[in-house]
Structures are given as C-alpha cells and as structure tokens.
C-alpha cells in the first residue's frame, strides 16, 4: 500500500470519544478538499465503526482502547482502520445482517455495518473471539482535478 500520509491515534473506548474520532478522521481527510457529502459519509461511517467497538468490544470487561489509523492513498482514496482488542465477533455474517443487534435493549438499531457499507466503497471486517475486531474502510474522494475547478488561476 503506497501511503502518502498517515495518522494513527489510540484512545480509551469511551462514548465521549465518538465525536472526537469521527471529527479527527474528517479533519485528516480535509486535506483532499472533498465534497461536503463525501465528508458527511466518511464522518457517519467512522462513527458507526467506533461506536460498535465502544458498545460491544469491552462488554463485561475492563474498558480497553481503540486504535484508528487513517491513510491517504494515491488517487484520493482514504483508508480508515478501526481496531479494538475486545471480545471479538463469533459470527461476522450475523453481525452484519441489517437490523440484527446483540444489544437491542440499548436501542441499537442493528444498522451500523449497513451504514458503513452504504457510505464507503469497500468494507472489511476481521475478528477473532477473545482477540478483537478490525474494520477497514476505503472511500474514493473527488479529486480536485475531477471537479473542473481548474487550479488556482
């Protein structure tokens, strides 16, 4: 992976960090000057992934950490990796099924992965029970040259 720029940040899996995490990723992506809608999509997708880790990963355990890595790849592609070291997901297909939630009592809609899929170009989920879960997402942003704004003349 030819990484042009990278940001890595580790923080406690606490709900007050949800806002910080999605804002951080968007601040990093802003260097590509994406559209308002692209940035909103990215913000929402990151929020879903980070919230999943906060709600599920450290259930019945000491709260651990979440590591978010953001990379700028060639052709204006943003890569985001959200990793926890929590309980993991035994059945990933079930977890990704729309409207399925293992925490319905907390009014989780069961749509986190659906939103991530819809708002990014590529989503991967890898998980090992007892070891943690890693979500990666890629999204191509509108390159400045594609906008037809013609540089800085």
């Amino acid at each position, binding site marked *: 992976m030819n990484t042009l720029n990278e940001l890595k940040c580790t923080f406690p899996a606490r709900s007050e960090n949800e806002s910080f995490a999605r804002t951080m990723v968007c601040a990093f992506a802003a260097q590509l000057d994406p559209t308002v809608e692209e940035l*909103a999509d990215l913000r929402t997708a990151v929020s*879903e992934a980070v*919230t999943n880790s906060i709600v599920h990963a450290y259930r019945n355990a000491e709260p651990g950490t979440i590591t978010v890595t953001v990379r700028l790849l060639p052709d204006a592609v943003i890569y985001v990796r959200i990793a926890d070291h929590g309980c993991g997901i035994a059945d990933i297909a079930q977890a990704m099924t729309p409207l399925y939630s293992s925490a319905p009592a907390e*009014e989780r809609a069961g*749509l986190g992965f659906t939103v991530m899929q819809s708002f990014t170009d590529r989503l991967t989920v890898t998980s090992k029970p007892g070891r943690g879960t890693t979500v990666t997402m890629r999204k191509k942003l509108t390159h400045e040259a594609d906008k037809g704004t013609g540089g800085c003349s």
Partner: protein
Amino acid sequence: MIELRQEPEKLTVFLSGELDHHHAKEIREAIDFAVREQFPPVVVLDFRHVTFMDSSGIGLIMGRSRLMEEYGGTLEIHNPSQQIRKVLRISGADRLAVIRNHVDSAAPAGKEPEHEYAE
C-alpha cells in the same frame, strides 16, 4: 440538548447538536418522560438544529415509533438535514415516521431555522 413544546394534541421535541450513541440515552429518557406524561396523539421530532446523526438516531426513532404504536400515536420527523435524510433512507426509517421538510413551526424563542434544505 432538547427543548419541548407541549400543546394539547401535540408534543414537539426540538433536538440539537450531535445525535450519536453518547447522547442518545439522555435524549431518549427525556422524550419518553414527556410522552408518558400526556400520551400526545402526535409527537414531532424536529431535527433543524441537529448537525449530525448516525444509526444511534435510527435506534432512537425505532424505539419512539414502537412507543407511539403502543397507544396509537403518530411520529413525525421534521427538517432533517441532507446527511440525516440519507441515514433515514438507507435504514428504511422513513417508513416508521412521517418525514416533513421545510416545516416552519416556530422553534423555541430566539432560535430561528439556521439553514434551508434545498434538494
């Protein structure tokens, strides 16, 4: 975070800020407390001052929709931003509530609508 306006037939909930998992519980409890006080025929969630919402907001809408069904009330969603409309559409939540854009019902004193929603 939320302001309520209670009328005889209608409870309007003016939400503001970011509707994510961190804030959802507090908002949910405040809405449910007000709903259970009067069981209004119509509950309006006004999103004009909500700057961000993820699927935690969908959970909130699904839960309120169920609560309304229990006593036969109607749930309405007013003035969602473009980002919020997209989340509503993807999740199918636009089938759970009546969604109205450009509703100019008076916000609480001193709060004018901040933006228009051009399609």
